[in-house]
């Protein structure tokens, strides 16, 4: 048999998208050479879990994406701390910070995103922190002493996690948000109200519709720095945390012809506009059908799924394209919240909104339907059923007729769910049926009330 030439795969960025892609390539192509270029010193880790490390609930050694042996076993060459500095798509090469040049046949770019900084005068004169990689935690942690005071700019997903870590360590926090609600990209006004209440109960001072205009060193005070808000208030602080969103990292793309808009544009099999170059994860934009537009909604499930599709197609398989939906699971100082799809819009056009709200229990559920299909859902406190609705949303199941019953706690629509999963539930089992049982339950199913006779039978059983 003639030997087919070995393919050289290169992956830039070893987040979840990059590592999952490497794994997928190896599943299809046992002999290709896989080079995984990790720009960070620290071996690949679960990015969201840096918050656990900051809190002291995990150590870095406990949040690796894979153990060191795994890379060896899969014959994946992992290059830590050597970022790619230049990409040449005509020569099909990459230059690395170490000065080495790598040739590739197939390239995957998964550089993720970087924090976006707001314009604040004098930001360079005060200690500023972000929270998105291992180094940030190493820098920030020593500052987090009880009684220290932080100004947090932006109450989004990362801001929320940052403030819960800071509060847990006894740091006082003043959090400002430009929009008129907290978590504006995922919560509707009502859910945001609950969230805000929880955040304030934890001791964080929340200022909405506020930005920071100016910061400066004001020596000799209890806290050595000062910030001026758009409302004209001066706040003393020890350090400032910026969490005003993330933007895709395009730094490697200049002059490559790789098309971008908000993120890198990709096809269903994750190819960019340049042949043999693929992209996946937070750096890409995708068509969000729940909102009817293309946008960058970086999140874990998307990075994993896209990484997997990219890896499989790079290695020549024909994977099913992934159709992303924006999914978030958060914990707001003990209050579990799950959102999916277009959940942020308060008055969505051409859509029906169904709400169930039990304020005494902080239990709030909201569903947005368009043409009978679920396009947005929010679960506050009562999250156990969220997965079912994720499934209905993703499969674009028409639930217009049953939404009321699916919604109601007393009538869970379990029969509906059963019908969707019948094969997985019943299997091809020859059920050893006991006829009287069947009869009894079929009667029950037809909504007849149990008479005295059935009750007696039931009691005897």
């Amino acid at each position: 048999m003639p030997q087919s030439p070995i393919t050289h795969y290169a992956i830039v960025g070893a987040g979840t998208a990059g590592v999952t892609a490497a794994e997928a390539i190896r599943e299809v192509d046992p002999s290709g050479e896989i080079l995984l270029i990790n720009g960070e010193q620290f071996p690949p880790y679960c990015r969201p879990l840096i918050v656990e490390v900051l809190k002291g609930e995990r150590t870095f050694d406990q949040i690796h994406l894979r153990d060191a042996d795994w890379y060896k076993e899969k014959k994946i060459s992992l290059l830590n701390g050597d970022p790619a500095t230049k990409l040449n798509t005509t020569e099909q090469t990459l230059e690395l910070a170490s000065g080495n040049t790598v040739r590739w046949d197939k390239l995957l770019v998964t550089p993720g995103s970087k924090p976006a900084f707001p314009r604040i005068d004098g930001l360079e004169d005060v200690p500023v922190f972000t929270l998105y990689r291992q180094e940030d935690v190493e820098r920030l942690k020593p500052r987090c002493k009880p009684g220290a005071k932080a100004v947090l700019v932006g109450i989004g997903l990362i801001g929320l996690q940052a403030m819960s870590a800071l509060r847990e360590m006894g740091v006082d926090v003043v959090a400002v948000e430009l929009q008129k609600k907290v978590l504006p990209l995922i919560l509707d006004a009502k859910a945001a109200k609950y969230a805000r209440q929880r955040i304030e109960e934890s001791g964080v001072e929340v200022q909405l519709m506020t930005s920071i205009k100016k910061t400066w060193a004001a020596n000799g005070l209890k806290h050595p720095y000062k910030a001026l808000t758009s409302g004209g208030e001066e706040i003393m602080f020890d350090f400032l945390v910026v969490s005003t969103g993330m933007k895709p990292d395009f730094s490697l793309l200049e002059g490559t012809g790789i098309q971008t808009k908000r993120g890198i544009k990709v096809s269903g099999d994750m190819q960019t506009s340049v042949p043999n170059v693929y992209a996946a994860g937070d750096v890409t934009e995708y068509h969000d059908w729940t909102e009817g537009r293309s946008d960058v909604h970086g999140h874990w499930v998307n990075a994993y799924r896209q990484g997997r599709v990219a890896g499989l197609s790079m290695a020549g398989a024909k994977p099913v394209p992934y159709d992303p939906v924006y999914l978030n699971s958060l914990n707001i100082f003990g209050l579990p919240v799950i959102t999916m799809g277009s959940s942020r819009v308060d008055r969505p056009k051409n859509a029906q909104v169904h709400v169930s709200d039990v304020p005494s229990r902080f239990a709030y559920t909201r569903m947005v339907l368009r043409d009978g299909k679920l396009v947005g859902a929010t679960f506050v406190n009562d999250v156990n059923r969220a997965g079912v609705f994720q499934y209905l949303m993703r499969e674009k199941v028409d639930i217009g007729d049953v939404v009321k019953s699916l919604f109601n706690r007393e009538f869970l629509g379990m029969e509906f769910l059963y019908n969707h999963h019948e094969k997985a539930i019943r299997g091809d089992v020859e059920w050893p049926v006991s006829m009287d049982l069947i009869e009894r339950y079929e009667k029950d199913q037809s909504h007849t009330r149990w008479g005295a006779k059935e009750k007696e039978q039931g009691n005897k059983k």
Partner: protein
Amino acid sequence: MRRIYTNHLLCSGCRACSVACSVVHFGVADDARGAIQILRDPIAGFEYQALCRICEDPECVAACMAVALSIDRETGRVLFDRDRCIGCAMCVMVCPHHAIVPDRRAGKAIICDQCDGREVPACVTACSTGAIEFIEVEEEAGVKR
């Protein structure tokens, strides 16, 4: 490999399965901590047995940002490393079978492991109506996912 299947027509909703599961895994009789949950729809008189159905392409594994969930490529089963779990509920968010229980007290997910190590899972043994069966299914050769 063997799989757990259930028949709602035979289920009386007694929750002995959930209790048995919690006893075997946590040493407590607490139906709320069973990896099998019986969800009752009182109006339709329907008992839904929610437990891991071992999806072909498990969404929970993709969603687990702590990498506590993985696929056993030999058996297709979902493996759960409880120590790695941080209780973020990402798996709960995506499970189409309503099969993952967030244990809020422990801050961990509860997920069926088919009673790894026992010959017959506890829920199957505990079921007195025959509504839960543990059946050998044919393996698709060299499952690759």
